[in-house]
């Protein structure tokens, strides 16, 4: 029980340039891995679609999301002003969607945004998400295989996922939502206790795995199916431990946390999204991981539904998305989300690497699985960066309703991962985004 409820005063928001890094480490890493160019992938998701005034409406350019006109000569609506300085590194995509899920009611988008799975047909059985597909090859040389984040955290439940990432068996990977914990895992000082722990962890996990296999032998069929999940996870930790041991002699990158607002939570959306995006940038910049996903909000009632309070709006983001006429409020809110995303993209572009900027070495895929009020078609998508992986930008590309989004995943797979002939329900690839 609180006797006095003083709110903790929020410290000044992080400067856009980000926090300082101890560079010597980075240089030594660069020298180390000179041969292999780094390829990185980020996928972001926002909830509940975008405002879509008619093309001839007076507020089309003030409140609309989709660009007007196709190709290089497109006009960007006002809400994208924040990312326009990077026009040549950004592509807008319209028309794409996951065909199998077009007919469904909304709110499920995060479940299949990156998997393309037909979860209606399979009830809630999922398949691998594109980020995890890429992580297999991209993150061989990094401390973490991937960084999975969402503002809700965990996995929530099927049809209201709070994670974008699904493993090879289609199991949801819990997302982290606590900035302080994310920071500790990636950059926290390694204590003596942790050093000791790492020395014994291999043997401990080995024993846990063997014992679990023993238990598994004495289980019936239904139990075995569930137990399989435990075994897979322990094996995964086994691999993580091996990875940590390899990394043991390399000190963690030194990141100064004093400028990060690590105690921010979703009740203060601007501060929270700022620190979460900054953690993503730091993870990629320090080469802690090369694959990251961030679901900025869950399509379910909860704290993240109050994000519009960041721009002084009392309505929930869900309620805003149902607006069909006066788009000013929802546009103001989406503008805010766009600014947060653009800040991240600019942040990546501000970091110089040997062969270009961090953005040139990171393909960023950002969007939502609904467009106008809960319609699961014509996903609003921004693709940026990845120049060094063959991507070319500067245009608005429009596709017909029959083109699966998975076709883009095939292209992404081919450019970043290994040879990818097919992903989920793909029918071809999408070459227009390539140089």
């Amino acid at each position, binding site marked *: 029980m609180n*006797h006095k409820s003083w709110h903790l005063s929020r410290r000044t928001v992080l400067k856009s340039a980000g926090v300082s890094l101890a560079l010597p480490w980075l240089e030594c890493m660069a020298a180390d891995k000179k041969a292999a160019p780094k390829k990185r992938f980020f996928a972001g998701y926002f909830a509940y679609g975008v405002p879509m005034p008619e093309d001839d409406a007076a507020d089309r350019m003030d409140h609309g999301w989709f660009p007007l006109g196709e190709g290089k000569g497109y006009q960007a609506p006002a809400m994208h002003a924040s990312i326009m300085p990077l026009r040549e590194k950004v592509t807008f995509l319209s028309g794409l969607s996951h065909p199998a899920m077009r007919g469904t009611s909304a709110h499920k988008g995060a479940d299949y945004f990156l998997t393309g799975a037909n979860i209606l047909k399979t009830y809630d059985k999922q398949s691998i998400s594109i980020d995890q597909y890429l992580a297999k090859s991209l993150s061989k040389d990094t401390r973490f295989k991937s960084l999975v984040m969402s503002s809700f955290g965990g996995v929530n439940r099927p049809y209201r996922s709070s994670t974008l990432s699904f493993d090879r068996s289609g199991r949801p990977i*819990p997302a982290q939502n606590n900035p302080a914990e994310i920071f500790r895992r990636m950059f926290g000082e390694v204590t003596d206790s942790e050093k*000791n722990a790492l020395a014994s962890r291999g*043997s*401990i996990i080995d024993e846990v795995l063997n014992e679990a296999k023993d*238990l598994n032998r004495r*289980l019936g069929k239904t139990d075995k199916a569930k*137990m399989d999940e*435990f075994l897979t996870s322990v094996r995964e*930790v086994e691999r993580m431990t091996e990875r940590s041991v390899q990394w043991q002699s390399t000190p963690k990158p030194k990141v100064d946390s004093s400028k990060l607002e690590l105690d921010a939570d979703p009740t203060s959306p601007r501060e929270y999204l700022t620190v979460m995006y900054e953690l993503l940038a730091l993870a990629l910049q320090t080469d802690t991981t090369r694959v990251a996903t961030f679901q900025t909000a869950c399509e379910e009632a909860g704290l993240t539904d109050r994000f519009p309070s960041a721009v002084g709006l009392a309505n929930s983001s869900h309620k805003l998305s149902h607006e069909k006429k006066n788009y000013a409020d929802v546009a103001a809110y989406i503008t805010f989300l766009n600014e947060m995303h653009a800040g991240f993209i600019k942040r990546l572009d501000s970091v110089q690497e040997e062969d270009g900027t961090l953005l040139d070495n990171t393909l960023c895929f950002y969007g939502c699985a609904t467009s106008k009020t809960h319609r699961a078609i014509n996903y609003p998508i921004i693709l940026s960066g990845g120049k060094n992986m063959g991507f070319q930008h500067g245009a608005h590309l429009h596709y017909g309703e029959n083109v699966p989004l998975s076709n883009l995943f095939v292209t992404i797979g081919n450019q970043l991962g290994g040879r990818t002939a097919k992903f989920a329900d793909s029918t071809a690839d999408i070459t227009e985004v390539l140089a």
Partner: protein
Amino acid sequence: MTNSFGTSLLAFLVSIPAVASAGNYETEIRPFLTKYCVSCHGPNKQKADLRLDKLDPDLINGSDADMWQEVLDLINISEMPPKEASAQPKRSERQFIVDALTLSFRQAMEARRSTGGRNVIRRLTAYEYNNTLRDLLSLDLQYAVDLPPEGSAKEGFKNNSSVLGTSALHIEYFERIARSALERIILAPTEQPTPYFVRVEPELAFKPEPAPVTTENQKKKQRKPKRRPGSGYDIKGDHFVPDKSVRGPLFRIDHGERSTDGSGVLLAGNRPSDKVGDPFAADRKIGGSQGDGRSGYQPEFRVEMYEVPHDAPVLVRVQLSAVPGKDDAYPRLSFELGSFRGANVSDQKEAANIEIRSTEPKVYEFVVHGANFPFQSNKPGRPSYFRIFNDYRRGTSHLTYEELPKLNIDWVEIKCNHYDAWPSPQKKAIFFDSEHRNDEPVYAREVIARFMTRAYRRPVSDAEVDRKTALFRKLRTQEASFEATIVSTLTAVLCSSNFLLLSEPEATVVQDVATERRLLNDYELASRLSYFLWSSMPDETLFELASKEQLHKSNVLLAQVRRMIADPKSEGFSRNFASQWLDLAGIHRLAVNPEYFDFKEKDKGLFEEESIQFVHQVLKSNLGIDTFIDSEFAMLNPALAKHYRIPGIGGGSFQQHAISKEYHRGGLMTQASMLFGNSTGSETHPIKRGVWVLERLLDDPPAPPPPNVPDLPEPEGKDLANLSLKERLVEHAQVESCRDCHAKIDPWGVPFENYNALGQWREGSSDPLVHKAHQAVNIDPSTQLKNGKRIQNLDDLKKYILTEKKSQFRTAVVRKVMAYGLGRYLEFSDRPAVDAICETVGKENDSFQTVIEQIVLSEPFLTK
């Protein structure tokens, strides 16, 4: 027994559904398709590339489930057949096909997730994991805070095996948490840490000693504390600070009154909100300057400590007596630990809150762990503090300052780094006395075996201990010490599938087949019982009964259930079951619209606590489940009484209060948790409230809305924009495709119209408790159920449930408790058991305890 299983299993197999199964497709669905659809989507034409006569009607094994879903959706929202088609189905035909397809889908989903009516191995939930470590290590810390947030199954239960995933991230955290807890206990320093000790004699604040006074006025003046807040008193008396270079502790007091004999201080129980006069007046933070509590100033008694050992047990001793107030009002002792984070910024948490009745001075002792409190400042240089209150609140009781009960505090002692014995009892429990203590390999084995037995909640085999001693030997060469090696070995025990998972394996190796149903052994039963009623591991009594193979006997089981309910740990059941059954999390998903209400976010906690305490009261007092529908009492504290506008409620924590009819409270449905959680945060929401009643109390969830239909029609054009929510509901129900479903839902929500979005009573044409602009309402709680039954108001609805819906309600409660107790969805094969339990419960006056007892004695609970 085998026989009855055989029968129910057979019944289950026969019931496996599909569109195609038996007559449903041929008799109900195909005729509709042939009549209205196949001319465009059949052999001759395939509009939209769709041919319905060739769709595979098997929803489970077939490959067309998604197409069927689309067919259902389009028929449901009347988009198909198209308006221009000559053959149009009648409304009843359309409804019939929609119902038939919806049912098929629901059954297919159930078949898909079916476990054959058997319990499946499951992970401990985060809260179970926390409680289990607490009981296993005898150390009450917040272990589970960093685990990923957990979802819940469709019915709301978090302990359902199907939603309890174990990811690599989980394993990573399980290892980290276990190691840190074990290191804390086992690797504690050899030397007992030096305590930090403060003793406060509060009269020191009133020096100089008062000269003899004569007039009443002088007496009054003399009893005021001399100094204002912000200034401290260096503790001159008894204290011990380990590091002499650190600033000593400070004692601060404000608005306390010197006790008449001068030996202590009187703290009046009064809160900023407790103004005399209008009991429902708005909160006021600070009153006048009188400093006697009359004005609503909180008396302050605080000890500030610098660089205190914050991550250790704290002993608090207080000598005090009660000065009772008018009408048998007694003071409440409350204290909290906190720290300053900035100039006027602090963080704190209450550590104790008890009523004091003794008018003779007595010593009260408390031990809490500093790690569970924000006891360490995150700003260097800011002090930690201890603060003591009289938590009696005037509430809505009209007591004047003189009539308020007071605490007479003689002295207070605070001892941080408090250990009764060293090494700690927790460490001694792991490293127990043994004749082999000096024989390391033998002793290690003993230590490991004893710990494993409790962690695995059953006896462990030699082979199981062998594996762990082998691990110990392997690690011993690389670890720094014997104790450090034990930490690592026991960490492996706490990451084991035998600890983290509730499993009921067979005695021998099983091939990849379904196993035969069997009775649980006594240890498995002990775990089911304790996770059901305590959300934690079994205690020594249960283990002992299991070891004697007594537990499964009905009379023993019943006695244990009663003992466990009487144990304070049964709050684990009330808290977790109530939260999940009633969806109390809904309170926190919703924000109160400041345009409608002045509302403090933290008061949401009151809503949640009321419902938990209510369920707990029904359990503890062995009341009937009809109490959930209506009761002549409410669980209230002064703040909630104020929210509900119920006068005469003072005191402290939640207590049972008899409530007269005029306040319109009784049962779960009049509680703010449900009424607010199913509002919009501004206005009432009859649909949500209706769905809640159907889902939670009657276990009759309505079909989900079809896709692309918004919650309510969007106001389009001027006419609709100004409609109230209820009027828009009516509009909504005008839409043909919506009408039939809503006729089933809305009447269950309309009778709640007398309760505003915050669950406060209102009637007539104005709601004075919302802001002026929104006060005009037109309240009409009368409605008609789909079966024609007329309902005037909520009282009427309660009566209807308790008479005509009584058996459905009873079955619903039994099914909810049973799903929670088993940690899985109930299935068709559980029906005989549910029916039998309901029959017994009905005969036993519908007692809630009987529900629990009968579930424990039922076949599904006793078998694997």
